[in-house]
């Protein structure tokens, strides 16, 4: 290694810069031209940047720009014989829109309630509060949520706890003895998040006002305080 003569922390450039400076060329000459060219280059890069940014932003916003209708579709949950009358059962289906690397996350559960005959209700697994998986308790005829204690009656209407509304319900129909539901998107409270062709949204089950102590004296039969509830065929 050759010996450095000057102090190592001295800047290297100035001496050399002076040496390479073309003689007799004042620095200011052509300055305004170079400033103009610099401004032009800024403009050029601004334009290129915009052309660059538009597809990138489009790519980023892609998931939000997709049409909702492309994500939901009719899904076959199997023959009606698989759903005994009066029971509420957990049924899994493969989400219609998945990627090959989704693995188990593409399997979505839902609660199918066979009331009687052709009368069905199909509830999303997600609690209407914050999306945790609700569990059905057949004996107390309640859906309970493990996260914050939301509770729903067998017809999906709100019973108690933090949810503001009842369970999300998938539209359903019977096709040649099979139960079909219209699903494909995680149900949330966002408007337009659960669209259905011809229909506007997933059925919104209204929360019934909880009876207060004010009507305690009257001792009404329980159904009156819950208009949404269907009585259980005993």
């Amino acid at each position, binding site marked *: 290694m050759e010996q450095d003569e000057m102090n190592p922390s001295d800047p290297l450039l100035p001496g050399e810069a002076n040496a390479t400076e073309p003689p007799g060329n004042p620095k200011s000459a052509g300055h305004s031209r170079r400033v103009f060219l610099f401004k032009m280059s800024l403009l050029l890069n601004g334009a290129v940047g915009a052309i660059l940014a538009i597809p990138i932003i489009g790519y980023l916003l892609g998931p939000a720009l997709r049409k909702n209708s492309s994500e939901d579709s009719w899904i076959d949950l199997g023959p009606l014989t698989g759903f005994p009358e009066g029971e509420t059962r957990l049924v899994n289906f493969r989400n219609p829109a998945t990627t090959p690397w989704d693995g188990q996350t593409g399997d979505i559960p839902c609660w199918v309630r066979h009331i009687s005959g052709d009368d069905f209700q199909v509830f999303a697994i997600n609690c209407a509060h914050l*999306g945790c998986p609700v569990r059905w308790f057949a004996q107390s005829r309640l859906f309970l949520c493990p996260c914050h204690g939301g509770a729903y009656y067998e017809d999906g209407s709100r019973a108690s706890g933090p949810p503001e509304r009842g369970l999300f319900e998938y539209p359903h129909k019977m096709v040649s003895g099979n139960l079909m539901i219209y699903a494909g998107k995680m149900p949330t409270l966002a408007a337009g998040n659960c669209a259905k062709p011809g229909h506007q949204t997933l059925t919104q089950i209204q929360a019934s006002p909880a009876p207060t102590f004010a009507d305690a004296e009257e001792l009404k039969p329980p159904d009156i305080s819950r208009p949404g509830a269907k009585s*259980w065929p005993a």
Partner: protein
Amino acid sequence: MASLKQRAIDVYSWFERRLGLGAPAIEAAEHEVPSSTSSWWYVFGSAATVILVLQVVTGILLALVYAPTASHAWSSLEFLDHNVPLGWYLRAMHGWGSDFMVAIVLIHLTQVFLFGAYKFPRELTWIVGVFLLLLTLGMAFTGQVLRFDQDAYWGLGIGASILSRVPLVGGALVDLMLGGPIIAGPTLSRFFALHVFVIPGILLALVGLHVWMVLRLGINEWPMPGRLVSKKTYTQQYHNLTEKTGIPFVPDAEWKDAVFAAAILLAIMACAFWFGPFGPTGQPDPTIIQTAPKPDFAFLWIYAVLAYLPPSLETPVLFIAPILVIGAMLLLPLVSGEGEKHWSRRPVALLMVAVISVTLGAFTRLAMYTPWSPVMNAWTSDPIPVADLNDRTPLEREGALVLQNKQCRNCHSIGGIGGMRGPALDSVASRMTEDQIIRQVLQGGGNMPAYGNALNPSETTALVHFLLTLRGGNLTPAIDASRQMVQSSEQPPPPSRQTTPGER
């Protein structure tokens, strides 16, 4: 020897002549700081930086094995834990490092707040620090998602459900967060990109800015009561203080930082070694619904707040409170950039720290045992205490069966076992009359669902008769005083005047 030393100096000089970084670095390391800042209270910032380096290193090492796809992330974590030599230890270090990082950053923030270090001229240092806190929490949350297990899956569900409540753009935000219609492959991929590229990139850049400003503006001097900060005089005062009491940061002040950082690293390693890695819990399979999802430690308090907020307040609080809190933190140094620094002259600041830490601590503690959640298996696993079944009539024992079968125990405890969602039933008959119990069971109310549809009349009768025996070691049964009044005012008083108080 001398020639070897000369050789080393030559090599250094060769690089230094071309890089020119050594001299300013040495100058920065040796810059004078007020001797009062050489304190064990001033070690948290550097400790957080050291943990950040640890997190970067362990994170890169984990990324050598981790598979960031929804179908394989979970099994690659299991592979790390069980098949890769010391993979479990690296996972544990990264996980515990994250918890320590959040804790140290919070302690650093509290110390800086109490020492008035955010005041002139260090306002921007504080503001950048607030963003660093948010980014640290962002790393903690996205990191929990990458531990792609049941908690991560349902945690994403909670995140999406919260976002869906944003007015107007909620649906679009959910789509952007999930990257598709459901929580699946694209969701994990984007959280991987956030955790590994986006947030760390911003975090490292802002840490650089933060440290640069500390060097440029000087470390906050130890506050003295009555020594007020004024924009006109502060710079000169700080300069004089450094002139008078200055010591070189390296080595005179730095050794405490180094010792503390080493202690923290040892603590992380010890926790990792003894307690092991976090999870993964069950597979991220949404069809396995036997789960009670919970967020990581740093977010437990939010989990508790979400359980206790009244439904009508939830959405406003979710979106307005963070804006207010973060806005207040950002504006703090601009609003109160001058004046007293010492905590003993800032009672409001002291009180705020006390109230906020007690509140966060209490909510975190509550979220550790979630009294608001039903105990989903209490009805099958927890027996009725034998003492409550002795000397009971068949009807009352039948009622105990109804109580068990109808899952009342999921929310109500007896003998200290069962859910805590509803009140304990051990002494229910001393608080409620028969009529009140019937009404509460059939119609619900308060936080209780109505059981009118789930109970037939004979079950109701049996249940209520059993509940009437629960008087917590023979307390007096509840009586309905108003009913006595009604009865006595409606009927002419009986001539013998012997209305016993317990009678209905």
